[in-house]
């Protein structure tokens, strides 16, 4: 976005944006209604949207759903917390001690290319069925983009900013919170957003492969029992959850990052 816009123009822009988004969703829903109504697509593949809607309402009211949601959210929260804290810590260490960073560098890049979820069966064999292996794998998925972006963000800070901080006698704590953190935020935050997104994806995916509870497991379970509308309700719930988490992160990012204001 370039140039100054009046608040009126910005408001109009937001209205068009949301209007277009709504239109796109309505168009897709219409398409789904059309292909299911005349039998082009079998209800065993895609049930009519109103059938899915009913299944969704029914599902949300159950205690089973609350337990699944709670389990999945807990796993996402735990893995995100572990991944972000470890990622930022290792990122700061690699920046502060360049040799440590240089040793780690090729392995972090390789970790980024690793099919981490493929290790799930190994962890299942070793740790047993439960939240443990799911959280561990998701935490690694969160960790990688966070650490990479933290290092790049910190290294990209112009030295003059740090010198400036030192010359006005910043304590190292002040230097961190007032200089380093804000200056590296434009790269650290997208890293966190991408990391949490990978964490959400891998949590649901590992639950889907094998678990005893959780939103991903429920889709698998409903498919095995051929309850196709409920399976689609489960898919819709997961898409909505992913969207909600992404929006929440963007909101937090906009609140914290001063350069976006």
């Amino acid at each position: 976005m370039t140039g100054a816009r009046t608040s009126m123009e910005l408001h109009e822009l937001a209205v068009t944006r949301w209007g277009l988004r709504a239109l796109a969703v309505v168009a897709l829903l219409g398409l789904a209604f059309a292909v299911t109504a005349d039998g082009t697509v079998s209800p065993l593949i895609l049930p009519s949207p109103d059938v899915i809607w009913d299944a969704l309402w029914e599902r949300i009211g159950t205690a089973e759903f609350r337990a699944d949601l709670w389990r999945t959210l807990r796993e996402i929260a735990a893995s995100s917390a572990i991944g972000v804290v470890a990622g930022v810590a290792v990122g700061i260490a690699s920046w502060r001690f360049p040799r440590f960073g240089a040793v780690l560098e090729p392995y972090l890049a390789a970790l980024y290319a690793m099919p981490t979820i493929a290790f799930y069966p190994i962890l299942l064999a070793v740790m047993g069925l439960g939240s443990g292996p799911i959280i561990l794998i998701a935490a690694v998925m969160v960790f990688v983009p966070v650490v990479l972006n933290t290092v790049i963000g910190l290294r990209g800070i112009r030295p003059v900013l740090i010198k400036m901080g030192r010359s006005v006698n910043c304590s190292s704590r002040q230097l961190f919170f007032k200089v380093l953190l804000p200056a590296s935020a434009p790269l650290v935050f997208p890293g966190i957003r991408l990391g949490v997104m990978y964490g959400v994806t891998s949590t649901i995916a590992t639950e889907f492969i094998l678990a005893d509870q959780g939103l991903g497991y429920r889709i698998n379970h409903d498919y095995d029992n051929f309850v196709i509308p409920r399976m689609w309700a489960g898919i819709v719930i997961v898409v909505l959850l992913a969207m909600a988490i992404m929006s929440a992160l963007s909101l937090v990012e906009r609140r914290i990052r001063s350069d976006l204001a």
Partner: protein
Amino acid sequence: MSARVATFSARRTAVAKEKPRRDMAVLAGRCAVPLVCLALWSVFAQTSTLVPSVPDTASALWEAFSSGSVFGPLLDSLKAVLGGFAIAAVVGVLVGVGLGRSRLLGLAFEPLVTAMFATPRIILYPVMLAIFGVGLPAKLWLAVLSAVFPIILNTAAGIRDVSPTFVKLAAATSCSRRQTLQKIYLPAAAPAIMVGIRVGFSISFVTVTIAEMYAAKTGLGQLVQTAYAFQRYDELFAMVALITLIALAGNFALWAAERRVRESMT
């Protein structure tokens, strides 16, 4: 919102220019990391009956190749990944160009594409199974769904980043629409498109593997699943190691291609 993440590669070349002399401590450290990992693995193998030793895993891997039992599943997985990935690359770049060029389409559909990128595509595997039944087509179309969204998002972001000067240049030299796309937009967006293609490859490979763990007649993931089910842990470790090696090899090849594309731009 783009899914791009910066990598070390650009920075690494800059650092290399500053310090041409090799730092022995760093080199020693780099060599020590895999050794420490192997040592840890051996300790785990000693203390737990569930973890096979390093030589056992290596011999299980060797056995799978020398008996030839791994080739069929390996080929089936690769067919699904490469076929799906090729379709996704074509569709993803085309749709990405559309979303990047048209403000209207971008505003309307990009949030949906982003939402799909944030959703694990494996949950759509049951739908693929319902449409195609268990077999190669279900895996192949799941690979398409896995790879296509990051390619769309990165292409759209790359197209939007193309400098207006280039576009004006095309207009000034009265390029046709097709020429503008071929000579201006695609080459200028190529580095971003390559990032999408690499991420798309990783995701489609992993997704196909876990789909095979869930339900498949054959494939690497299916080998992992049977090894797990029959508690043949040396085979399990060997297959996971093989999957890891393939993913790393594919990624590094695409990384190299990405760097060449980026360097040819400057």
